[in-house]
């Protein structure tokens, strides 16, 4: 996990952001936050596999956050000078993907409970500090097989992954601690290529295209998805994290692009960007072929980018950072 704290510009209003899960979304949010605000980040090890070790590490993180507030106020007991202090716990973790089994999701669920409990304890311990919990949920998991989903649609998860996200939302909303709850339901996310990080469909197609490797898709050529760019999400969420005025008490927002794209369209776009044919194998019995489409969500400040230009940007960035060359060197 990554712990971000402001670096002394406003000592009377300490701001701490604890990001759990530095994957596609988490890392993009941290990058945007550190570039926009005077926040310093520190990566703290957290075990996702060993519950006992995880509990100890979370205890240490909790104490470290408490110490940060205490240091900012110059005393162990925060009092009158605590105005504007905030703690945001940002959950974008999750190894479990769409194909996860119930057993796969159990570890993630217990980790989520542990982090939520830590946030609740901190909120009770420092009532003067505005504590917020940001949960990144999956619209695809919640609304699998539904079409034209809008903000009023009712989640009907079909598989353990969707159920996991639904239960996480319910757990957070049921919390009676003084925590402001923010849930963001994201449609299919694509983002920059990062080595050794879980990549989405588009990045996989780009990477495999460059390496002349076949990509296997567990959907049909005509399967529809709603893709949104991690860069747009990061910009939107960073703004939300930095400017949250504490209202309302809880909110659930859908972040969608509103433009359905077939997997065939994505394949053709990637081919156009990398200027070569890519090898794609579509499953004969696709487990993930149901169309999921969304109406454009329009929370203030949310402006999804054009798919084609974002794919081009990912490709250019991957060239500039050398990720593509590394991928080529890895070629067997």
């Amino acid at each position, binding site marked *: 996990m990554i712990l971000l704290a402001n670096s002394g510009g406003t000592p009377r209003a300490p701001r701490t952001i604890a990001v759990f899960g530095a994957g596609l979304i988490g890392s993009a949010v941290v990058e945007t936050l550190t570039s926009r605000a005077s926040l310093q980040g520190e990566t703290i090890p957290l075990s996702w596999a060993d519950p006992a070790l995880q509990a100890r590490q979370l205890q240490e993180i909790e104490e470290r956050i408490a110490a940060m507030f205490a240091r900012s106020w110059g005393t162990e007991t925060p009092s009158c000078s605590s105005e504007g202090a905030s703690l945001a716990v940002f959950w974008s973790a999750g190894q479990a993907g769409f194909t996860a089994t119930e057993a796969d999701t159990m570890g993630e669920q217990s980790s989520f409970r542990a982090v939520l409990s830590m946030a609740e304890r901190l909120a009770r311990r420092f009532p003067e500090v505005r504590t917020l919990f940001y949960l990144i949920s999956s619209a695809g998991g919640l609304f699998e097989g539904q*079409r034209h989903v809008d903000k009023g649609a009712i989640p009907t998860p079909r598989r353990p992954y969707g159920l996991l996200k639904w239960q996480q939302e319910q757990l957070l909303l049921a919390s009676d601690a003084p925590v402001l709850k923010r849930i963001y339901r994201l449609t299919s996310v694509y983002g920059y290529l990062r080595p050794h990080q879980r990549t989405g469909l588009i990045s996989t197609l780009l990477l495999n295209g460059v390496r002349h490797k076949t990509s296997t898709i567990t959907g*049909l050529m*005509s399967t529809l998805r709603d893709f949104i760019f991690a860069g747009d999400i990061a910009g939107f969420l960073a703004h939300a994290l930095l400017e949250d005025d504490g209202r309302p008490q809880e909110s659930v927002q859908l972040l969608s692009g509103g433009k*359905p794209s*077939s997997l065939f*369209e994505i394949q053709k776009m990637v081919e156009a960007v990398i200027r070569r044919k890519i090898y794609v194998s579509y499953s004969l019995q696709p487990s993930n072929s149901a*169309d999921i489409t969304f109406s454009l969500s329009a929370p203030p400040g949310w402006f999804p980018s054009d798919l084609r230009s974002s794919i081009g940007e990912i490709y250019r960035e991957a060239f500039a950072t050398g990720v593509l060359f590394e991928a080529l060197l890895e070629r067997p």
Partner: protein
Amino acid sequence: MQKVYLSTVTPVYQGAPYLRRLVAELAMVRESLAREGGALELVEAIFVNDAAKDDSPEILSELQAEHSWVKAVHLSRNFGQHPATVAGILHSSGDWIATLDEDLQHHPKFLVSLLAHAVAHRQDIVYANPEGAVHRSRFRNVSSKSFKALVGWLIGNPAIRKFSSFRMIRGSIARAAASVSTHDTYFDVVLGWFTDRLGSLLLPLVDVRSHAERRSGYSFRSLLRHARRMLVTSQIKLLRLGELTGMLTLIVSAFLSILTLVLKLIYPELIQVRGWTSLILAIAFFGGLASLLTGIVLEYMSTLLQQSQGRPAFFVVDRSKDSLLLPLVERKEAQ
């Protein structure tokens, strides 16, 4: 209940006088389908503002605010009818997509008939063709038909006669064709890369704009533009004819050369004029060779062009949801 979703796509360029009426007509179709309670639902009407030169963008914004199912897509400049249609299709999510003009020449009341026809005849595309003359001008009607026949012959695609901008297309095929369309491709020819199940339905279509305003939305220039696009997108039959002619000339000239040589050797007295025969044969031989090689080069170029335009090796389609529309087909047939 499992639903079959229908989207409509309308490119808008100078549709201000018609847009409200068009949306009202679409709303009536939508409500009537909802009342019938069948599987079909008109789920969205997408209007693509192709840098309209009248008040259409403002009207579209108002209509979008009034109706949740009306969606406006605003293009950055005027790209033309086909690119605008492609943009609309790529924003759609329906199982079936109907494309129709802004000026009510393509009346929404025919949407269900087109769809029922497609399902009943197991087709992926159904074009609406006019029962009678669609335009006021006889010249316009005749030139349009002759033009289609000529281009159809040139590119060896008789389906061109059916082409019309009022079409009902299976969603997955429409989106796939739109995905590979470029600024220079002819959308209907590209649709033919993905399916050969296409039909047409005769409907009483009237060019409302030309009747009301005494002018057509199309000019001779746009007709030529259409022809150019069709030729660029298609493999031209004429090329193969040229190639074949070149090959035949080459073979005949080679045969005649051998014959002349044999005659010259056995019966030298038969050839009186010196040089003429060999000159003609050399011209025929090299002319044929040049035609054949040019034809082969052009065919290579045409194949490369189609590859660069994204002509697929194959495409997979799922038609299983059509069975949900059988009650609708029966109802239409009973009428």
